[in-house]
């Protein structure tokens, strides 16, 4: 309704402008001001009882859109909660500005996947002082807040190492396609994988660990070079699915698909389909719709119960359940769970 009114106003101003009478423009602008301020005051009081929640995403991508869908599912059944998705553009300063804007707006809950754990902390502290509940997704913040909900990066990666080693018969050489440094997820997944290999399959050696920027295209280039340098590679772990699928592309082109065991992480739709085709060997699957639903459930319990952020003494920490999807288990993941 607001938008329609705005467009109408602009149209009428433009019409007056065309008729080329400056006085008319000014008087119509004035009229707009008066009518508009009454209108917005009216709207504001009408919405006073409504709870408002926002999700400041890292930047638009499959995972955050699936989270948002899960969040919306839970919130949309409650009429009095207004939900908005915002774009952090992958930049810390944009996220900080958005945080300050919504804090000032007086929202009840902020969901956020921080671009940087330290940089977002002053803004999170400010939100807490104003009694706003902050829930982080996948990337934690150093300032204490209401809750952190993440995929089980460390233990999931350990489990991947176990299953992958079994598929390789307990021996061989493994390469890791990694993310750029500076994000905690990278360390958790890499450490989990290395520790898992040490514990379950001490005869498997990790011979290469290179950065492929989360990207399928980059992973193709990196893995091709790796194969030339180390011809005997029999296993690849991509710390996200895109990079693992990049390795699949290369192995397929070189006819090595049956000799190399390739695992990804996350469990996006493309990866699951690749497993069904018998190309990708496996991945850690997390239901990220469910992750969004959990976040929204916590938020609506706190908001409708009028729990203030100051009342929360300990930060909640929720690790998402997961399964290791392989050719044998992938059928268990239902169509509506795939993202």
């Amino acid at each position: 309704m607001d938008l329609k009114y705005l467009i109408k106003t602009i149209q009428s101003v433009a019409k007056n402008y065309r008729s080329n009478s400056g006085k008319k423009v000014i008087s119509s602008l004035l009229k707009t001001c008066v009518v508009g301020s009454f209108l917005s005051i009216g709207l504001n009081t009408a919405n006073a009882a409504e709870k408002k929640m926002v999700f400041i995403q890292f930047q638009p991508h499959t995972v955050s859109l699936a989270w948002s869908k899960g969040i919306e599912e839970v919130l949309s059944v409650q009429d009095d909660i207004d939900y908005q998705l915002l774009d952090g553009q992958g930049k810390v300063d944009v996220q900080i500005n958005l945080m300050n804007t919504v804090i000032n707006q007086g929202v009840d809950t902020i969901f956020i996947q921080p671009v940087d754990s330290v940089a977002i902390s002053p803004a999170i502290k400010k939100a807490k002082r104003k009694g706003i509940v902050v829930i982080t997704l996948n990337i934690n913040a150093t300032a204490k807040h209401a809750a952190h909900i993440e995929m089980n990066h460390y233990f999931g990666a350990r489990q991947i190492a176990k299953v992958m080693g079994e598929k390789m018969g307990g021996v061989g050489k493994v390469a890791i396609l990694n993310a750029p440094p500076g994000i905690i997820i990278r360390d958790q997944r890499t450490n989990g994988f290395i520790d898992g290999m040490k514990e379950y399959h001490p005869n498997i050696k990790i011979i290469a660990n290179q950065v492929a920027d989360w990207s399928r295209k980059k992973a193709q280039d990196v893995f091709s070079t790796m194969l030339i340098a180390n011809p005997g590679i029999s296993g690849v772990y991509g710390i996200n699915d895109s990079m693992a699928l990049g390795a699949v592309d290369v192995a397929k082109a070189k006819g090595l698909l049956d000799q190399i065991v390739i695992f990804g992480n996350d469990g996006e739709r493309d990866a699951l389909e690749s497993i069904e085709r018998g190309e990708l060997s496996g991945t850690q699957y997390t239901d990220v719709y469910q992750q969004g639903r959990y976040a929204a459930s916590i938020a609506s319990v706190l908001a409708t119960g009028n729990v203030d952020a100051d009342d929360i003494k300990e930060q909640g920490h929720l690790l998402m359940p997961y399964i290791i999807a392989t050719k044998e288990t992938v059928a268990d993941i239902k169509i509506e769970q795939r993202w």
Partner: protein
Amino acid sequence: MWLLKNIPNRELILFFVITSLIFSLFSSTFRSAGNVENILIGFSHLGILAIGQALPILMRGIDLSVGSILALVGMVMFDCYIIFHMPGYVVLPIAIAVGTMAGVINGILITRFRIQPFITTLATMAAYRGLTYAISGRQLVPESATQAIDDNLLGLFDEFSGIFPYSFFLLLIVLAAAQYILSRTRIGLDLYSIGGNPEAARLCGIKVDKMIIISYGFSGFCAALAAIVMVSRMTTSTENLGIGIELTAITAAVIGGISLQGGIGNAIGPVIGAFLMGVILVGLTLTGISTYAQPVITGVILIAAVSYDRYKYYKLRSKNSAGESA
């Protein structure tokens, strides 16, 4: 009427006021004092960057490396404080020196090797970013990544005096200095002459190369100040700080009436341009307009500003040539 005609950037100011009015009508939060605080603290660094960007553009150049200089300076501050435990009053001059030096190097490359400013700063944009990764204390000493910069002096620009943040006062100082240099000093006069016609300026005996180095050095200096403000707000720095901010700064400068043809513009315009972009971003968020529509709207405003710039340029040129033939 005469007075009205002589206000600089009057169309831009009018547009700014109308935009702010419209958002104020549709969002009660937008017209609150808290929001004014947010916009001032959130976009002062962009204003500083845009003033810095104005000088190279005035001389028909461009500085694409400001985002990387910003990251480099931020990382130097991080290293000095977190890794080497230097006090804030030592870190600040080092930061400013590093930024200014990075800018001066741009200027030297442009003048010595006669490379296009666009190409030179594109190259140093990559080089300074790479250097930032190379010196990153967050990667060399991984446990430092979660430590915050908690020095009182370095945190100053996240503080307020009344509703005005200290970063805004810093912006006003830079603005006053830049406007004074441009309108009242020999350096300013030379800058405009070179922007208007470099060859003629050279023949008049203006040291063009020296002026180019000064302008890129100033841009680097402004990037350092912006970095100080940002580090102050974030209490840390990251390797990818300021990616893409050079384009935002150039946009702000161009919206602010700095002509890409060189020689036209002042220091006030870019600041209004920067805050206009802030008002639009915050306003669209508060009125609940889809997050995907926001870049589109910013793009439309930029096109409008540049078209207007071309229009003014051609009008001025036809007026001048009419004067010559008469």
